[in-house]
């Protein structure tokens, strides 16, 4: 499992209200949610994001509400991976559960800027800044979690008897 894309860089405490404002939670349509992703702090995000791009942020990413709509909006926007110093716990759980790979790696956060091209190998936990050549190491996902993410999330994984769909 791999990801590669251009980086959108954010700071500390990016909360779920800015990832997807509550005024748009009268729907659970993934495309509609994605069309408003990050708009309260970065109106350009949804115009510029391309399939495979990567979000990098500092500490406590995803704090606040338990809305699964937040990782859904990020995943549906095309983002292939979120890297942060730390994640809020409900967001972490929700992301894995819907099949959005997210990695905690403070060193990578120090060494990645907006616009850098970054690649991630989830089987080894290796994060490479292709722009600067720097390489960072995060905890790799265990095999079951790789299968879970490849199944599109926990529901697909369970429906398939705990195997990759």
């Amino acid at each position, binding site marked *: 499992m791999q990801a590669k894309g251009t980086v959108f860089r954010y700071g500390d*405490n990016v*909360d779920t*209200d*800015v990832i997807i*404002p*509550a*005024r748009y*939670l*009268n*729907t*659970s349509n993934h495309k509609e949610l994605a069309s408003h992703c990050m708009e*309260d*702090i970065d109106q350009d995000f949804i115009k510029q994001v391309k399939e495979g791009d990567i979000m990098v942020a500092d*500490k*406590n990413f995803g*704090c*606040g*509400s*338990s*809305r*699964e*709509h937040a*990782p*859904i909006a990020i995943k549906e926007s095309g983002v292939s991976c979120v890297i942060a110093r*730390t994640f*809020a*716990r*409900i967001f972490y*759980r*929700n992301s894995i*559960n*819907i099949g959005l790979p997210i990695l905690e790696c403070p060193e990578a956060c120090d060494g990645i800027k907006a616009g850098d091209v970054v690649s991630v190998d989830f089987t080894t936990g290796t994060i490479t800044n292709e722009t600067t050549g720097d390489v960072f190491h995060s905890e790799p996902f265990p095999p079951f979690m790789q299968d879970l993410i490849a199944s599109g*999330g*926990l*529901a*697909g994984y*369970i*429906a398939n008897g705990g195997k990759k769909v």
Partner: protein
Amino acid sequence: MGMTMTQKILAHHAKLESVRAGQLIMADLDMVLGNDITAPVAINEFGKFGKDTVFNKDKVALVPDHFSPNKDIKAAEQCKALRCFARKHEITNYFDVGQMGIEHALLPEKGLVGAGDLVIGADSHTCTYGALGAFSTGVGSTDMACGMATGQAWFKVPTAIKFNITGSFGLHVSGKDLILHIIGMIGVDGALYQSMEFSGEGVKNLSIDDRFTIANMAIEAGAKNGIFPVDAITLEYLKEHCPKDPVVYEADSDAEYEQVITIDLSTVKSTVSFPHLPSNTRTIDEVGEIRIDQVVIGSCTNGHISDLREAAAILKGKKIAKHVRTLIFPATQEIWKQAMHEGLFDIFIDSGCAVSTPTCGPCLGGHMGVLAEGERAVSTTNRNFVGRMGHVKSEVYLASPAVAAASAIAGYIADPAKVMEE
């Protein structure tokens, strides 16, 4: 090594003698909760499991409280999805408009959470029930769906911070001031992945409503749960509301804590969280003159009867400032009725406030009190993130019911003690 109160509840529900911090466990659930925003996503996921029905129709609670009474057609469709699912699966604890209250005030009031229970809810403020000596935590919709299907959820056993509470509050200071003070001290990720366990001789001076408010905002410090010991105050509340026998867990004397923080309640002042983080706190004497446009009193954090009484005591016989809109949201129908019988609505209406049916509406900028560009609100709710109550350039200042009521009268953020002197 001993266990914390949280660890003991988790061990019992995982059918284990003991657990240690960091251990992954599969635990049985006593209640699974969802609302009109999170449950539609969970219902969709539930459909993928191929299960005929939920694990136990008495142990699922569905409460359309966020965008309800339906704020628009899309919200109406989401509430309808909830209603249809509840009917199809004969969910016992489905509460539609008329019985509906804000979920975290409603479940304890209906006796659906008891001491020693393990509860998950697809709403981050599910941690509220720690006030009753239960382990409860917020999860997402997929976890809710799995919980509804299997009656189980996996957890990583948390470490804990112990808050040793001493003394008692001064005049006009309440549980909201204490939890804002704590979040200001440790930060919005100060208890990330941890339990916040409250104990000490001062706990007896915290009313059950204070405890609901404090446990409710544990998530705003990043905590997995907040929890109080079960004492005479808890047992009295449970006797009145919950038919189940309480199961009482106490932390072992040699339980390990990441840190122990002692707080003397008599030193806590009225506290306000400035935009745009709950940790951005100032005491009332440090706020300066902040002119406001709206006051919101209510929510899962501060919509209890004692909160309304506190606000009414300040508002009685006074008029709110001409430029301020003040909205009161009793958290449940029972609280609404009680406030009405106690004459609190006369006080609110005579002073110029509007009283609403229970809803989460304004807290998350949904409806019933959305802010325009540049507007400021003092609110007894729990979050003041960018755009939380409306326009991205609006501002929310979090405060207690007493400070909110005093501010409504003054027209700027005000100290209740000073407003009462005038």
